[in-house]
């Protein structure tokens, strides 16, 4: 089986990120304008060069308003990826496909969010005005809401408890991953957790959000901010100022009866089967070995799903993530340095897209917590993912 035709054809040529805060004090539209112009400056390109836009279905920034504000001249290609944060890495698949197919030459991917100061706090309790949550992949609002399961943490806790039960995982086993994420964040000046490392005791003593699997410190931050990426052909990127980061592989894997946060209907919830399928597509489908991955950025909205993805993606056996973590493998000296910016838990939550920024910095050699000579980095959000590489 040969790799899909777009493999390695497109590259990330620019990244931009606003400050991450709990109160941006300006609109999502403005945040998007700021991160996009920063990404274009990083890429050495102008708004007039852009002919493609990709975002998430749940992003509040309208393409028309963005075009009018940034001054894009003519957009040839635009699309949005469903499945909320689980779909976050899908922006790379869409952008790379468009570039490889010739549908667009320069694609801007963006996400702008006010998860803390906006009308809806990410972790806030919601009784939905509609039976679904609007293209986020959380289609079962009407089935959870009358039961007080009103937050992403509550929905994912139901799966996490089963995972812990099946494999004998304790909250402390999960907490060791959080301690590592916070150690990374502590040295990242852009992180919410900058200069604030935690101990395992801090983790264990933080209040319960959803017992027996999610303490407060297992949760990502509710963050205001925006991240943007500029994707163009690897050939063109080679002539631009930043070190090109090739999109070597990208895929989605959305399974029968699967949802995102409310993923309660597959028979076995102790295994993240979407990650299993994603790992097969990315590694087997593109002919890339897991051993070649120098670092991984894995969607950590809540820490249990980090361990579940490590297993699903095949970095360790099922049930072995707790030992993989305890053995220090997520650290810079470990087998798989992971979420080196502190992740969504330690740096902040721009719905996963800040993990792509960190993967890009690793491959450029400009990360705060740099993996020496990183050449291959995985980004994964359970049902969408990509493998990025440097020549």
């Amino acid at each position: 089986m040969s790799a899909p035709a777009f493999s390695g054809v497109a590259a990330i040529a620019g990244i931009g990120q606003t400050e991450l805060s709990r109160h941006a004090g300006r609109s999502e539209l403005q945040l998007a304008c700021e991160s996009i112009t920063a990404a274009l400056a990083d890429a050495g390109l102008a708004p007039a060069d852009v002919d493609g836009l990709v975002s998430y279905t749940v992003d509040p920034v309208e393409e028309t308003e963005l075009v009018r504000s940034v001054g894009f001249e003519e957009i040839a290609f635009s699309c949005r990826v469903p499945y909320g944060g689980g779909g976050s890495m899908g922006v790379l698949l869409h952008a790379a496909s468009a570039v490889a197919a010739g549908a667009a030459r320069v694609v801007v991917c963006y996400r702008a969010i006010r998860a803390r100061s906006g009308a809806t706090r990410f972790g806030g309790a919601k009784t939905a005005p509609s039976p679904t949550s609007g293209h986020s992949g959380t289609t079962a609002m009407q089935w959870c809401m009358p039961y007080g399961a009103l937050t992403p943490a509550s929905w994912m806790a139901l799966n996490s408890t089963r995972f812990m039960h099946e494999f004998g995982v304790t909250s402390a086993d999960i907490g060791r991953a959080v301690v590592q994420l916070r150690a990374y964040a502590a040295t990242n000046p852009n992180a919410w957790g900058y200069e604030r490392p935690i101990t395992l005791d801090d983790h264990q003593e933080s209040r319960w959000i959803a017992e027996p699997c999610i303490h407060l410190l297992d949760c990502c931050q509710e963050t205001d901010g925006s991240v943007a990426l500029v994707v163009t052909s690897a050939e063109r990127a080679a002539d631009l100022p930043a070190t090109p980061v090739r999109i070597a592989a990208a895929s989605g894997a959305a399974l029968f009866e699967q949802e995102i946060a409310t993923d309660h209907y597959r028979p076995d919830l102790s295994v993240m089967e979407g990650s299993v399928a994603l790992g097969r597509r990315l590694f087997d489908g593109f002919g890339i070995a897991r051993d070649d991955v120098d670092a991984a950025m894995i969607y950590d909205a809540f820490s249990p799903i980090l361990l579940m993805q490590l297993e699903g993606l095949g970095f360790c056996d099922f049930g072995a993530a707790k030992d993989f973590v305890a053995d220090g493998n997520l650290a810079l000296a470990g087998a798989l340095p992971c979420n080196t910016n502190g992740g969504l838990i330690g740096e902040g939550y721009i719905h996963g897209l800040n993990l792509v920024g960190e993967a890009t910095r690793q491959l450029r050699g400009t990360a705060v917590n740099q993996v020496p000579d990183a050449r291959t980095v995985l980004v994964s959000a359970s049902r969408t993912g990509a493998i990025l590489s440097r020549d």
Partner: protein
Amino acid sequence: MTPDAIRPAPIVTEDSAAFWDAADEGRLVAQRCAKCGRLRHPPRPMCPECRSLDVEMVTLSGRGTVYSYAILHHPRHPAFEYPVLAALVDLEEGIRLVSNLVGVARAEIRIGMPVEVEFAATDGGHRVPVFRPAESSL
């Protein structure tokens, strides 16, 4: 529940109305394909097995086991009493529901424990299925 804690009414769609209407009458039902007989939940208009649009609603036994659970502490919504005991219940007919556990102490909740259905009132005069420990297990 505290007097002002009244759970929100389910939001009903064309595809789910038969489930919630039956619940209002104290019956736990599921869709069954009228052609191939496959049970399914959550409800949907087409059988994913044979693509038939013909469907019948069947009444279930209301007996099942706890597949997983979570004891929800934060954030707090005024419609609920905390902690909320949320659970995934595998019914003996082979489908799974998100629900609440009632009549059980937190410390007694176990994965695999047998449960049976009862119905809890919601805002707007509706009822939704919840689960208590099965009589035979006490």
